[in-house]
């Protein structure tokens, strides 16, 4: 129980904080001032932020602290123990290890879209922007990490006097906080400073992940070991081999160094196939069915071109893939694109496999639009959920963003793939154009449906590390870490879409996933935050060159150091169960807990997360007690006890008569 020791440590750590906080307000006995119905909206926003992002490292220690105060004697429920700010003084900004304050600006007004103006102090560090209101008793805290900022805009602030400047931070996570401040002579302009640290790569600075010095007891970089993962899948076997062809990334610079390819193919053939596939992304195995040997194979589009080029090696390659699965004499290719787009790609030297050149191959188009459509859809979504929500036309506004429709297309596509493998026992090849966006979404979702291992907390991390990170989803370009070019057309919320699909599945199968909603939100928050190295850069090769593993901390270190916060207490291990989500739009919902979480009115009516966590502890506690008693029982009575029906000695009627 080393966890408990850690918890005790955290509780001790919270002690001094508590004192420091309560002194100015005049000696609060048990810190129960917050339980009084203050009802002020500021309190609200703070609570809200605490509730929704209490996983975020950057979040003020205030909510964490509150929790410690609220429940001084509740078991040993640790608040987030790791990654929270270590020291905190009155009116001082909680800092992460390695974080430094850049500037502090007084008399700043936060223009809250829900409650009006809030006066306070703004602090900018190299990781975050931290605003506290002047109120002593229950200060309003706004904490925005700089990585989440998409662009900075100056806005006009009428009626606030001369010299007042307005600033809007347009964020990637569906909010746009606004501030008004007085420009001061001699001080560096806060906008410049923000821009410098929000977009470090554009200003020749390092990302904050390289400055972050937190020590976690668990090393998240060890979560994914490709060889071990392939071994778990029963690889290598007689048909598939683990190849080191790409160990120095010369075969394909966006693929990982370890690939699984068919055994019966020569190195030269592989190289010829690489030339025929866009970006040299040859067909490689992602997942194999342990029983039928049907495989999910991913690749990029074939470079067919307008003249319908052929590549004998490529055709043979797919034939071998088909032959590797004895259960089926067919191979299904899922092209994620819209068929019309696939055709136009031919003119751009791309294209799709012709069924006449590839015998026994069935080609399906999944009709999923491209990254630009997705980006636009999410942009519309932001208009719908922030800052105001139109009550009367909420549903039609959601319809008009088409976001759920694209979620449906993705889930339906993944379900088709999973069904092909599971029911059809047929191997599938999945590709889109380059094989790193829609392909990744589809293969990872299909694997999530097929393999219960990926539904565990650790397994999901492996899935993300494998399908997304190592296979070169271009996080750097899609998210734009530290880059100020917000209009870059390469940006697109594909990973957000994937997590949304996962969330939809957790809604339909609430007991099938070991992780909870908070975990998914945490992953998305740190997709942008640049605090961890996990999602930085676009390929394994690049990451190796930047020494990400040695110089940054993995997000999984943070998560796995406190798994109880991210665990679903209702998880049941459905081993070998295939999940088939319903994909009609009637069964999909908008993930308001993520998209609309900044609206204080969207608070959950019951504190879900804390409750879940407590349940987890309760369960563990009861379990332990039963085991103790059982041990005691077996030691006392050597003879097995009689078939004792659970008769209730103290049977108080449950439903008392009313």
């Amino acid at each position, binding site marked *: 129980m080393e966890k408990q020791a850690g918890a005790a440590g955290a509780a001790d750590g919270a002690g001094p904080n508590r004192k420091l906080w309560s002194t100015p307000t005049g000696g609060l006995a048990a810190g129960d001032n917050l*339980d009084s119905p203050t009802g002020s909206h500021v309190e609200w926003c703070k609570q809200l932020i605490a509730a929704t992002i209490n996983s975020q490292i950057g979040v003020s220690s205030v909510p964490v602290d509150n929790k410690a105060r609220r429940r001084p004697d509740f078991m040993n429920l640790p608040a987030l123990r790791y990654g929270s700010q270590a020291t905190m003084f009155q009116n001082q900004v909680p800092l992460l290890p390695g974080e430094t304050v850049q500037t502090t600006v007084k008399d700043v007004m936060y223009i809250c879209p829900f409650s009006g103006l809030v006066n306070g102090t703004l602090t900018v560090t190299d990781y975050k922007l931290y605003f506290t209101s002047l109120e002593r008793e229950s200060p309003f805290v706004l904490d925005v990490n700089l990585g989440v900022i998409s662009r900075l805009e100056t806005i006009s602030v009428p009626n606030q006097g001369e010299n007042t400047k307005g600033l809007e931070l347009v964020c990637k996570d569906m909010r746009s906080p606004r501030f008004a401040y007085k420009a001061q002579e001699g001080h560096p302009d806060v906008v410049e400073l923000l821009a410098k640290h929000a977009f470090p790569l554009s200003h020749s600075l390092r990302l904050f992940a390289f400055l972050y010095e937190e020590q976690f007891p668990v090393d998240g970089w060890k979560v994914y070991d490709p060889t071990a993962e392939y071994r778990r899948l029963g690889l290598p076997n007689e048909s598939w081999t683990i190849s080191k062809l790409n160990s120095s990334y010369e075969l394909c610079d966006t693929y990982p160094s370890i690939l699984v390819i068919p055994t019966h193919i020569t190195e030269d053939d592989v190289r010829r196939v690489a030339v025929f596939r866009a970006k040299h992304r040859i067909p490689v195995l992602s997942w194999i069915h342990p029983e039928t040997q049907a495989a999910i194979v991913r690749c990029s589009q074939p470079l067919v071109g307008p003249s319908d080029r052929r590549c004998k090696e490529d055709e043979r390659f797919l034939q071998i893939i088909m032959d590797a699965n004895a259960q089926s004499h067919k191979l299904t290719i899922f092209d994620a694109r819209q068929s019309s787009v696939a055709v136009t790609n031919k003119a751009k030297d791309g294209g799709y496999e012709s069924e006449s050149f590839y015998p026994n191959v069935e080609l399906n188009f999944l009709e999923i639009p491209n990254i630009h459509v997705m980006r636009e859809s999410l942009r519309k979504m932001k208009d719908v959920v922030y800052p105001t929500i139109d009550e009367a036309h909420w*549903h039609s506004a959601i319809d008009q963003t088409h976001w759920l429709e694209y979620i449906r297309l993705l889930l339906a596509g993944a379900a088709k793939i999973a069904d092909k493998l599971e029911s059809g026992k047929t191997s599938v090849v999945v590709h889109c154009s380059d094989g790193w966006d829609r392909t990744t979404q589809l293969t990872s979702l299909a694997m999530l449906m097929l393999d219960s291992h990926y539904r565990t907390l650790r397994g999901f991390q492996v899935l993300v590390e494998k399908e997304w990170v190592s296979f070169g989803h271009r996080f750097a370009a899609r998210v734009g870490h530290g880059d100020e070019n917000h209009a870059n057309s390469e940006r697109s919320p594909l990973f957000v879409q994937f997590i949304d699909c996962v969330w939809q599945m957790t809604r339909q199968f609430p*007991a099938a996933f070991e992780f909870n909603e908070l975990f998914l939100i945490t992953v998305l928050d740190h997709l942008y935050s640049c605090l961890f190295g996990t999602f930085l850069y676009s390929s394994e090769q690049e990451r190796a060159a930047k020494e990400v593993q040695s110089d940054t901390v993995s997000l999984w270190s943070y998560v796995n150091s406190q798994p109880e916060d991210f665990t679903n207490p209702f998880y049941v291990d459905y081993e070998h169960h295939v999940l088939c989500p319903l994909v009609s739009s009637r069964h999909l919902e908008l993930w308001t807990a993520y998209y609309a979480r900044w609206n204080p009115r969207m608070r959950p*009516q019951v504190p879900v997360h804390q409750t879940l966590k407590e349940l987890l502890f309760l369960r563990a506690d009861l379990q332990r007690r039963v085991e103790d008693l059982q041990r005691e029982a077996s030691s006392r009575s050597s003879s097995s006890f009689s078939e004792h029906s659970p008769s209730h000695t103290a049977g108080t009627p449950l439903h008392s008569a009313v």
Partner: protein
Amino acid sequence: MLTGSKTTFKVRQMLPDIKERMLSQSGVAARSRDVFGLRCLPGECVLQRAIMVRKKLTAREGRGWVSGTLFCTHFRVAFVPQDSPKPDDNADPVLLGDYDVALASIEKVVVVGPNRTKLVTPNSSLKFTPEELVLYCKDLRVICFLFDRLTPDAQVIEITYTIAKTYQPLKPGSVLSFQNAALGSVEMKQFLSNRRRNTHMNWFESASDWEQELERCGATGWRVSSVNDRFEMSTSLPRSIVVPQKVLDTELKKSFAHFNEGRIPRWCWRHPRGSDLLRMASFQNNIYHEKDDIRNLEMVLFGCQSSLCVVVELGEELPSPADIQLAHGRLRALSLGDISTSVSVPDDKWLSTLESTHWLDYTRACLRKASEVACLLRGGHLTVALQEADDRDMACVVSSLVQVMCDPHCRTQHGFQSLVQKEWVMAGHRFYSRINYHRDNDKEEAPVFLLFLDCVWQLFSQYPSRFQLTDDFLLALHDSIHLPLFSSFLANCQRERCKRSQNLGQSYTPVNGWRDVESSSDPSDPPLPSVWDWSLQYSKHRRDRFTQPVPPIPPLQPLLNGNLNTNPDTHRLADTIPGSVFLLSRGIFSCPANLLPWRGGSSGVYKKSHRRAASSENVPGLERLLKAWALAEFPQGLTSTAGPQGPLDPYEPLLPLLMGPCMGLWKECYLRGALHAQAFSHPISANHPHPVELLAREVQQLKDKLAQVSTSTDPSPPTKLAEPRRADTNLNQNTNNGTFLFPASRPPSMAAPRAAPRAAPPPTSTNHQTSRGPPPASAPPPRLGHKDNSGGGGNKHTFLFGPPPVAEARLDQRYYPAPNNAKLPKSNGSSIAS
């Protein structure tokens, strides 16, 4: 009968069979079993049956399908799964089995053949052998049967014809014959007459019932008046009404004429902070007000609160019955996904179409109005009178919603039943006309009660841990509305109910199926069963699902005592001029001169009333009360729930969030029939037991085990048990909202309420299913501790969720379904995360 038609011929052919069976049945026993396992009601006879039929299961039932025998009797379409346990012949009759549907619930019969679908009417003839039979029900269920290749074609066609002929395409007479079919037999009447009514709930039929409620609410200053005992004052009001103590019956009698239908202001409920909730109809303006009348009227209206009265006008912002009917019609059309007309909404328009039904707008409007009223009542010591033109529709909705929000008692099953009894059945909601069982009054039809159920569901989904009843209960009630069998819904007011039961002895013959009146000494005893007689309608395991296995935290005070006056807002209203009356309309308070008709018109009278003019001074105070909910403040929900250790005020109203994203669609009700939801071969249900319940069950199992282990080791269990129980109490206090308040002990049958034995699916499954093992519904209930206890420790997983004993028997299959808990149908759609 239409002679000569093909169908008639068929039916006629069957007749000897029926006759024979009826004879054989009556010869043996009243409650007999068909040879194929259908347990008939007394007097019920099987008209037709088909073997080897598969029934599609909805997501709620676990998905996939189950195979068995399909029956059509003259009362229901019944389905008996293959390996269903042999029913106990001596058990009380249950009207409908788990897979059955009453003929009166069926709205449409559709058959699907090769490449075609056809609507089957009593007169239609089939030119193909159906492969699938789809029954569209009025309660939005869609029940789908698949005929196997092994089902004899003749049986398929005949049962289709029989169902099409026997189900009731709503004619005035058909309801009576349906009732007769269900309850008309001598044995059934005997059985019904011997039934005792539920004593755990308040029926609000007699004066003592009302007195009990007054006592429960701690409402002093009120008395029960029997002035309407013979329905002479008001035909639609109940016999007993609650009026201020200081008003004498003689004075009261003069008030009736001043209100529409004589529905004078009556007390409904008292908020623990001392505010009273009243209902009344609108004023009759064309009556001359005498001096004394006015004094009486004001006394009646102000009740025992001398200070302040707020009249809440319900007509303005709430939907009219016609609106509700239209919206519900649209919602039905949208939800059912009717294959016979193949009208389906494209996926990308689903939400827009849903919005355009306005159903959610109407639920929101009702909840908003109720929240306003709840906030007013919370202010303490004022009287809130709900006024509606006839006081029989939206007043029922709002007054009962207010009580559900504010009174934890109303969130228990029995409390809720009492509430419906008080605010709907006895208050004279026109169930009979609004439901329109006879289809002879389309103009009046409006599912007001269903709108109310939806509102309650919205509250439930936002505060699942504050309810003792479950959405399963709401769903059962929803379905029962469509069954024209219950006295609760077959009349428009108490008078009609009484009239019928009194007339019964003379003019009604047993043909009508009504129980003889002589058996009951109480004349108001309904001749038809009450809807609250759940054991008549549903099997035990369905009923077990009506309540949360883990009840919400009990109120701190055992009773509402009217003295819970801790509200800081009170002083703002304390200086109120006595006798001020305000009108709340569209969220704004006003004191129009002509609000009380006797005031505006003749100022002379008004001066003599010894009350001062209503000033607008108090308006800000009142508005502040409202603001607490309506404006940008979020005081209560947060403070009461965020501090899990702080004392939770059980009477804080559950104020719902009404923004677009927060109003959900009751998918378990409206979308359960959607055919695409009945997808095949999904091994795991998308719907799981309420997570809370799952955990509760698990905890219960652990506890049982604990108890067992301790009893088996220690002959003196109390000391042993004491320790864990104490710890539990601790834990309970620390969990939020009492969501997870675990009872120290509960009967084992309750611990696994969802775990109903279901028939195993047959081996003739699709590829998919055989490879994955049988669908989840087959898994048996988790046994409580004792089974795996013998194994010592047991593996952790098994231990946690209870092992499916059947799984061991199926080890030959590589994949066997994981513990069945998760598949037991019960879902908690949006509640946990939203």
